[in-house]
């Protein structure tokens, strides 16, 4: 029993210590951001590899999720003769929940893990140490551009996910199952609110992007500089981001939509 409490204590101390470390790390990253203003090229390169290269995955997944939503939504709604509301169902599910959440999970798997592995390997092969010895701050040169590229990409990718998803739903609902095209769009237009739905969804994706970027660069920078250490850090990035996104999603949803 005492052992159990000891373990609990030790584990929670370790967790708090890690949170503290990552918090300090975040402050250092934020302090390094202004230096980027004079080096926009560094950011553009990262926007490409973090954001643009994730687009394919996001578009294909979004299309798929939208098509499934169209099919499932139609099957449920048609029982009530309400299939005209399909546009609203598809759009609300995507904009409020699936867009930000699924895009963040995919982003962690595609870009977050790659960021962690890249930074961790740079550490393991002494590239970061070499940079420091050349009087170049890795925080400014390596970490900050990757962090900010991830933060900026996430909301755009989530938006893209939702937009493509709506098209997927339209394709299945209207194209294949015969829902009226005008009803699909007009229901969507009248029931999806700009502030309540679109802005709130965007806020979610900004928060998720920030957290995903933070976890990815921290795990990479903090990785044990060995092959095994980097592979563990990569796994941790995906797992921790998933937990953080799902947990935050519940909290944000309660705050945003709880009082309706």
């Amino acid at each position, binding site marked *: 029993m005492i052992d159990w409490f000891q373990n609990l204590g030790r584990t929670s101390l370790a967790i708090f210590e890690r949170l503290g470390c990552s918090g300090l790390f975040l402050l250092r990253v934020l302090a390094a951001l202004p230096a980027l203003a004079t080096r926009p090229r560094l950011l553009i390169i990262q926007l490409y590899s973090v954001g643009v290269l994730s687009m394919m995955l996001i578009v294909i997944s979004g299309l798929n999720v939208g098509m499934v939503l169209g099919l499932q939504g139609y099957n449920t709604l048609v029982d009530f003769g309400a299939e005209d509301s399909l546009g609203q169902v598809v759009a609300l599910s995507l904009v409020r929940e699936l867009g930000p959440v699924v895009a963040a999970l995919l982003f962690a798997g595609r870009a977050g893990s790659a960021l962690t592995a890249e930074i961790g390997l740079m550490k393991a*092969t002494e*590239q970061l*140490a*070499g940079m420091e*010895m*050349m*009087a*170049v701050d890795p925080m400014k040169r390596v970490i900050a551009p990757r962090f900010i590229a991830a933060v900026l990409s996430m909301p755009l990718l989530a938006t893209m996910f939702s937009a493509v998803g709506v098209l997927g739903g339209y394709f299945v609902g209207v194209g294949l199952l015969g829902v009226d095209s005008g009803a699909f769009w007009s229901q969507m237009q009248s029931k999806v609110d700009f502030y309540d739905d679109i802005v709130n969804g965007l806020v979610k994706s900004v928060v998720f992007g920030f957290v995903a970027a933070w976890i990815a660069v921290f795990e990479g920078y903090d990785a044990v500089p060995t092959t095994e250490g980097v592979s563990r850090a990569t796994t941790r990035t995906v797992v921790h981001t998933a937990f953080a996104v799902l947990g935050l999603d519940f909290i944000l949803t309660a705050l945003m939509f709880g009082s309706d």
Partner: protein
Amino acid sequence: MSQHDDSALMVKIRDLRFAHGARTIFDGMDFDIPRGKITAIMGPSGTGKTTLLRLIGGQLAPLAGSVLVEGENIHGVSRDNLYRLRKRMSLLFQTGALFTDLTVFENVAFPLREHTRLPESMLRDLVLMKLQVVGLRGARDLMPAELSGGMARRVALARAIALDPAMIMYDEPFTGQDPITVGVIMQLIRMLTDTLGITSIIVSHDVHELSMISDYMYMIAGGKVVGYGTPQELGHSESGWIRQFLGGLPDGPVPFHYPAVDYAQDLLAGVTP
């Protein structure tokens, strides 16, 4: 060891103590690197030579003692001053530490791009000159993954001299090089020292090469300096330690083995009674 006055010293280390976890690496070491000379550091594998270079570069912090570089305590200065000092020194890593996402050319250009505002044509000439010195001008477009180990280290060498630093620390520059390249690198280090007045610190195991090229030699073992002098002085040393090390003899006061329990005992420990 106090034959140099302070202004002639590039690096001055006093009572240095350092440990990796529980393993003590330096236990009160004093150390001087004279300006504009080639100083060699030798010692058994695992005594902490690489660690020493990292302490001088300010990448590791000592438990106690001071490391003065050009009169400034490298572990006491502000971050800006640390970076200013680091622009004046460079460290050739044992592993090369090339940036794997940049070509050979861009690797050598890296410090120039970061710290100078040279026009592209001048930068190109400078990089090609540095690459020419190490014989790899033709390899400028290769990626680090396409280089052999020895080539990668020569690129790292070209990068280390790119900014014409005041001091260069070479961590095993001859390892993995063919005899011709070793000769060229030795000439290069000598030339940098004689014509540009660069201070060189060479960590290496190649006794023969080091005694030809260096002005002073240090031998460290067990966290302390066990031998110091010009190559001639050390060559005539009476110390059993130095004779064993320079002669490459397996038996003598220098332990060949990492600290361990008695060999016979260790083997017997696996035998279940």
